[in-house]
């Protein structure tokens, strides 16, 4: 088995009994005095991103950076770009450290490199945190060698030379380009001093708003995604899938007729359905539709929204603090399944031969993909080459390699290269989704203080079998918590924490295992868990007769947190008077050493059709690399929150989501998005924190709170407006 089973991983975790860590509590000291301090949660001590960085550390310097004789510098990045802007940010790191123009840096996504072990997983907002220093080190090493080569050429001291704009420059005005020095610099006999990193105070590019390095390719249509690649002989291929999740083929009843359809080249039954290869995708799609297949049952055929809700309610762990002892607020929340729905559907190209295989796909965990596919094909790992292709969105989806594995199976069965594309309907119905969850929250208060804050989360099991398991197992000794934790609980405890001094705070997860396709969705548990908590914060404020912003200001733990809150309150004119049906709402979130506040104004005159009309967001990332890219991530997080809080979710009906396209899964459109958005990135004050996922939870809270204030309706079930307002596609 390439991927350990859940059971094996649990066994490993239990087998590592020393779950202690000497933690250096960095960051500013808690400053709230009146509030009853909440001791640090596990995620305050070590978060998931840090675990991933620790796991990546042994191989973090195995980066490949090439200086060509034309002066171009290429960084091979062992991560996946899916729109989050990491190729641009890492190119900036290289350009800064080498003193070269950004246009001289190329970033290529590394193929699967098994020698990198745990250092090729794109998730947990870890990329920039993990590579910030290693990439600069690699660049500094290259720069030092180039300077040494110039020193040798000019027979002078390296210390008398400096670099600027891609050249080495001497005191007396000699200058030579890096390109010209590339060959000499590679000479192993060269004597080279130890490279020093540029002090952060001397940064001129890092921290400066910069446009994406691939922007031009994107606006001219030349950016290539998996299905745009020309792999000789790879035929358009699609799969007819079962009427319910994980159904399997019993028989294909008209194979000969379908094979005779125009353009159809081949047909194969695989674990997940019936694959058809054709001359064009149009013909492959027609053929999959024309197939008459008898199916075996799926794995969750008896499950629908109602049965799942019941299971989740039963699974939520009890509170410790009994009611009635003191004043308290109780609330329960439900969140529907949410499709990742990246605009580029699941896709992959596979060319499987008797003795080797080659795969192309958008992959955030390519090493595990390679191992699993090798296993599946009965090949050795080094006989399987896996190319990582820039993806058309992910939001967690491309942590899994379902399409790459499926394409490999089809290519093997058909004995030809295939270019596999999932239809949108299949991507929504048989793809992965954020697990539905149920939340119980109880807070007690007295004399203007919050005494306890308990949150019990029950969630359909989230699948983490994309390599995260092995990492967590290997890192178990670093976890600040002991006991028999499942994976999911480990992820939960290393991502979820309360930013407030709410006295005794406990946040616990219990999962309901169901055999369906789930996966981390941008911010994993935080969008729902912290989103619900931000609603509770508003309700607590109301009980205590306090303004939501003033209340947060009082109970947040640090000045850094308060600074982003104050920023949105000022810039967004918190408390301004608005017409009836409009209201402001605020939310706060902190994770992976970054924090953000979001303030929105909602127009909820029509309660069934509200629109967020304005948003003001401030975020502190410790060390922003590219503020322009960070703003883009916050804008994306805001849009995700608008969609999933107000309208977008999946209804599960007898083992299959009803939604099959964006006309049904109502991801936000232009008409749902605000016409006024202001985003502020706080100045640098430390090391880079996580970026890609931060924006969602605060925005979920802000939108729900604005809706409640505008309508007087306390939102409890998400999305708030969630009718089946469409005719589902046939199964």
């Amino acid at each position, binding site marked *: 088995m390439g991927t350990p089973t859940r059971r094996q991983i649990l066994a490993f975790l239990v087998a590592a009994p020393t779950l202690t860590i000497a933690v250096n509590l960095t960051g500013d000291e808690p400053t709230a005095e009146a509030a009853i301090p909440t001791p640090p949660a596990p995620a305050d001590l070590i978060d998931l991103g840090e675990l991933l960085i620790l796991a990546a550390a042994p191989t973090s310097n195995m980066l490949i950076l090439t200086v060509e004789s034309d002066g171009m510098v290429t960084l091979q990045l062992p991560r996946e770009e*899916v*729109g*989050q*802007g990491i190729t641009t940010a890492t190119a900036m790191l290289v350009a800064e450290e080498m003193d070269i123009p950004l246009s001289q840096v190329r970033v290529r996504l590394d193929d699967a490199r098994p020698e990198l072990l745990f250092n090729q997983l794109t998730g947990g907002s870890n990329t920039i945190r993990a590579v910030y220093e290693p990439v600069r080190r690699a660049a500094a090493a290259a720069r030092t060698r180039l300077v040494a080569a110039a020193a040798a050429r000019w027979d002078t001291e390296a210390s008398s030379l400096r670099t600027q704009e891609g050249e080495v420059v001497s005191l007396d005005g000699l200058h030579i380009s890096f390109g010209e020095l590339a060959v000499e610099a590679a000479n192993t006999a060269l004597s080279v001093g130890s490279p020093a990193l540029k002090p952060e105070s001397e940064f001129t590019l890092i921290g400066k708003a910069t*446009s*994406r390095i*691939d*922007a031009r*390719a*994107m*606006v*001219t*249509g*030349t*950016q*290539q*995604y998996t*299905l*745009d690649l*020309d792999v000789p002989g790879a035929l*358009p291929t699609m799969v007819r899938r079962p009427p319910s999740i994980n159904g399997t083929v019993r028989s294909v009843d008209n194979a000969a007729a379908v094979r005779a359809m*125009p*353009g159809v080249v081949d047909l194969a039954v695989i674990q997940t359905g019936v694959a058809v290869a054709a001359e*064009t*995708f*149009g*013909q492959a*799609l027609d053929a999959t539709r024309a197939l008459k297949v008898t199916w075996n049952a799926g794995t969750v055929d008896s499950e629908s929204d109602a049965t799942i809700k019941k299971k989740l309610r039963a699974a939520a762990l009890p509170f410790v603090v009994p009611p009635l002892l003191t004043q308290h607020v109780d609330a329960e929340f439900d969140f529907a399944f949410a499709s990742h*729905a*990246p*605009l*580029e*559907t699941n896709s992959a190209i596979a060319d499987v031969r008797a003795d080797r295989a080659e795969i192309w796909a958008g992959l955030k965990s390519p090493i595990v993909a390679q191992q699993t596919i090798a296993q599946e094909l009965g090949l050795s790992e080094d006989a399987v080459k896996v190319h990582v292709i820039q*993806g*058309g*969105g*992910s*939001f967690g989806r491309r942590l899994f390699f379902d399409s790459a594995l499926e394409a490999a199976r089809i290519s093997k069965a058909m004995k030809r290269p295939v270019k596999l*594309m999932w*239809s*949108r309907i299949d991507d929504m119905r048989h793809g992965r989704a954020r697990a539905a969850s149920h939340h119980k929250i109880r807070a007690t208060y007295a004399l203007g203080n919050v005494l306890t804050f308990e949150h019990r989360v029950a969630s359909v099991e989230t699948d983490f079998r994309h390599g995260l398991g092995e990492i967590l197992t290997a890192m178990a000794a670093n976890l600040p918590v002991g006991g028999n934790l499942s994976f999911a609980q480990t992820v939960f405890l290393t991502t979820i924490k309360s930013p407030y001094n709410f006295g005794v705070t406990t946040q616990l997860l219990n999962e309901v295992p169901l055999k369906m396709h789930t996966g981390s969705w941008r911010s994993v548990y935080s969008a729902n868990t912290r989103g619900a908590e931000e609603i509770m914060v508003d309700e607590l404020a109301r009980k205590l007769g306090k303004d939501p912003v003033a209340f947060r200001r009082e109970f947040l733990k640090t000045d850094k947190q308060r600074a982003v809150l104050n920023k949105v309150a000022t810039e967004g004119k918190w408390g301004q008077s608005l017409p009836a049906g409009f209201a402001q709402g605020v939310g706060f979130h902190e994770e992976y050493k970054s924090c953000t506040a979001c303030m929105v104004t909602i127009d909820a005159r029509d309660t069934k059709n509200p629109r967020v009309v304005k948003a003001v967001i401030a975020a502190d990332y410790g060390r922003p690399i590219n503020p*322009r890219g960070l703003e*883009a991530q916050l*804008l*994306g*997080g*805001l*849009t*995700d929150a608008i*969609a999933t809080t107000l309208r977008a979710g999946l209804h599960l009906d007898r083992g299959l989501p009803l939604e099959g*396209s*964006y*006309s049904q899964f109502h*991801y*936000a*459109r*232009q*008409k749902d*998005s605000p*016409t006024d958005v202001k985003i502020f990135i706080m100045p640098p004050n430390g090391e880079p924190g996580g970026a890609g996922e931060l924006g969602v939870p605060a925005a979920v809270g802000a939108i729900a709170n604005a809706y409640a204030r505008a309508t007087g309706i306390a939102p409890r079930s998400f999305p708030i407006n969630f009718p089946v307002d469409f005719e589902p596609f046939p199964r």
Partner: protein
Amino acid sequence: MPNYTFSVNGKTVTVDAPADLPLLWALRDKLGVKGPKYGCGINVCKACTSHINGKAVNPCVVPVADAQGKEVTTIEGLADGDILHPVQQAWLEQDVAQCGYCQPGQIMAAVALLKRTKKPTDADIDAIENVCRCGTYFRVRKAIKRAAELMGG
């Protein structure tokens, strides 16, 4: 199979395809024009948005036979050599794209809108239905307004 002759980005092409083959697949799979993207195949996501005789269409639901004798323009045909169309220029200025997958469609929709109305209002922009799953809408909006300026609207 029947033949269809039409122009794509100024070049005359002939494809051999069944009459009902969606133009999207004639472009992508037969002609190698990969700018227009598949996102739904049923005229919902608008990722494939291109122009026929200057008007925005969705080739995932246009049979190739309908293109006969017409002028098809895809994202690849928008720039004049190295000189970008003002809408593309505005897109760069606003750094709109994230994953970029929807952007050929967004840009082609914006170009068509600006052809219909020189100075689009927020309501005009709201009417653009193209899905951007990365949520770049606000930057799309700003870029359309900026493009209108660049085009003298």
